[in-house]
């Protein structure tokens, strides 16, 4: 009896080990010891699409950078299942591995926990996509590659007002999520100054994220002509489906969390037709670098990269350029690298051209400056709005 119970337990444990294991990308070309970059993000769990995309994008950039023959890098990407506690565990694993620079975390809630640790340990951190200001607040060595949540909220409100997309706005957001709440708060305060009337504000949490009939009925009764969705794409897909079943067809406007909705298996992309979102990256852009990246990504991972993949890619390039500029070598310890990297990132002549923006620069607070692009979904693909 006991042996059987033990067997089941072993099986459960063995399975969980499978998910703890991460993946390592080693340098392919050049010589010399590589600089160790740690990566953290969800590779499994509900937010896995973000983590996997970042990891895949970063790996492509890493191969390109190493092939240049200059500084060599090694990337060790660990899974955190979008969970703060597991994220800190992953961080500790990476520290034991000898991480010198952190490229993470991918999501906000774990990011707040991990950046606090990285600040204490003086490990330079560049997060590809953890967008809350709480991730960088008061931490001089934590930088963001993505827009901050307030910026997304402000930019969305301005974009809607400038392009006259709607006048009566309904908002549905996740009040248990720092990302969603952060964007919502800034959007509300910015909306007032832009003559946008917010007629309905409703919320949900992960636990109540299956029935949106109430929220949609409220928006409909309030006469909303545009629904702002500062949320991730999974609940957004439910909202689109349920609005369609109700026969309610307002405009939908999302933020970067909406990215991923088109790659959801079996999702009827007709429902997302006309959905607008602000994102820094468009896979259909015609510039040489984007075309090249999309082709490589499609070949390696059989899907069209989303903006998170581009964030991961840009992260590695930003680290590479800063390292080259600051003259960093693999034998330096993390704290030395950290100080040099801070100096490089905040230097007035430092800017990075990436897939997610030209001339990205950073302020001392860790925020990035770049311009968002408005996208609309047409015939199942993102198309630039302007």
């Amino acid at each position: 009896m006991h042996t059987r119970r033990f067997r089941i337990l072993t099986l459960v444990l063995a399975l969980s080990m499978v998910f703890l294991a991460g993946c390592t990308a080693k340098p392919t070309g050049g010589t010399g010891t590589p600089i160790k970059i740690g990566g953290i993000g969800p590779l499994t769990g509900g937010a896995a699409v973000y983590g996997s995309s970042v990891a895949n994008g970063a790996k492509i950039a890493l191969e390109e950078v190493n092939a240049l023959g200059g500084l060599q890098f090694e990337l060790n990407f660990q899974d955190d299942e979008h969970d703060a506690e597991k994220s800190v565990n992953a961080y500790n694993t990476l520290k034991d591995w000898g991480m010198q620079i952190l490229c993470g975390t991918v999501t906000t809630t774990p990011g707040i926990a991990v950046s606090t640790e990285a600040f204490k340990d003086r490990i330079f951190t560049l997060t590809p996509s953890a967008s809350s200001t709480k991730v960088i607040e008061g931490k001089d060595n934590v930088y963001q590659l993505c827009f901050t949540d307030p910026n997304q909220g402000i930019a969305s409100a301005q974009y809607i007002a400038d392009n006259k997309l709607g006048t009566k706005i309904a908002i549905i957001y996740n009040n248990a999520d720092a990302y969603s709440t952060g964007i919502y708060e800034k959007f509300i305060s910015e909306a007032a100054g832009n003559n946008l009337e917010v007629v309905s504000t409703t919320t949900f949490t992960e636990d109540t994220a299956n029935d949106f009939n109430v929220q949609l009925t409220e928006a409909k009764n309030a006469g909303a002509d545009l629904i702002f969705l500062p949320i991730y794409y999974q609940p957004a897909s439910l909202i689109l489906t349920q609005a369609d079943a109700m026969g309610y067809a307002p405009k939908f406007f999302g933020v970067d969390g909406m990215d991923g909705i088109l790659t959801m298996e079996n999702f009827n992309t007709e429902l997302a037709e006309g959905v607008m979102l602000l994102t820094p990256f468009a896979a259909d852009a015609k510039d040489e670098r984007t075309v090249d990246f999309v082709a490589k990504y499609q070949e390696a991972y059989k899907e069209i990269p989303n903006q998170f993949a581009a964030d991961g890619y840009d992260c590695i390039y930003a680290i590479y350029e800063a390292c080259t500029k600051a003259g960093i070598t693999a034998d330096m310890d993390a704290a030395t690298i950290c100080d040099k990297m801070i100096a490089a990132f905040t230097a007035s002549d430092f800017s990075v051209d990436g897939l997610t923006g030209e001339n990205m620069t950073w302020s001392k607070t860790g925020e990035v400056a770049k311009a968002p692009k408005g996208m609309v979904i047409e015939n199942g693909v993102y198309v630039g709005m302007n």
Partner: protein
Amino acid sequence: MTFLSYLISGLSLGSVYAIIALGYTMVYGIAKMLNFAHGDVIMVGGYMSFIATAHLGWPPLASVLLAMVVCTALGIVIERFAYKPLRAAPSLAVLITAIGVSYFLQNAALLIWSSNPKSFTSIVRLPSLKLFDGELTVSSVAIVTIISCIIIIIALTFVIGKTKIGKAMRAVSEDKEAAQLMGISVNQTISVTFAIGSALAAIAGVLLCSAYPILMPTTGSMPGIKAFTAAVFGGIGSIPGAFWGGLLLGMIEIFGKAYISTELSDAIVFSILIIVLLVKPTGLMGKKISEKV
């Protein structure tokens, strides 16, 4: 009109909870254990139907049958290998095993189907019903869910009240030892209970995913917990209790969201649960059983 539309949403959500709660309550009533893996069997049912319709191109009804067959087999296997060996063990050990099985199923689903959410195509492919000159739109899934729930509860009441196996279930629930002395195979009865409970989970999974079309390895866990709450609310072990508990829970959740606050909907649901349990510790329809000394 808005009230009516909320009422239908509530009834539809409540019906899903009720079907899941029936599985919890049957197993508890007969095997005296909380089968926390029930929510994950729902998820497996959802995936089976998804594979049948999206990958194999089967008609919706055939996919429901496949889900029921697979879940029934899964329920029997789980019972045979994880719970039966622990029949004599303290109830705490069985509870922990059930949690283990729940995690096992979730992680196995992660391995097989990956964590990427899948969009479930509703098995009900009829257009929404428009009433009162289009002022009230009722989705066809909601109607099918409510009707299925009523059919299931009638069928279940019939099986338990009128058939031989139902009699055996009642006897085992009443007193295991005495039932065994009367020539009833306790093990077989419990296996049948698991089989029925898991088949119900498959139906619940398909209906849940049709109404809320997103499928992930964790899809079953939250509705599972809510349905467990519904079963306790109605009086765990009582079949009509699970039905009314589920319906009420769904309606309280929707009305709480609609008329009080979307932020507090869960707080309202659980406050009402606490109040009901304070006044009536056995739940709405639970029987008070005096402990035998």
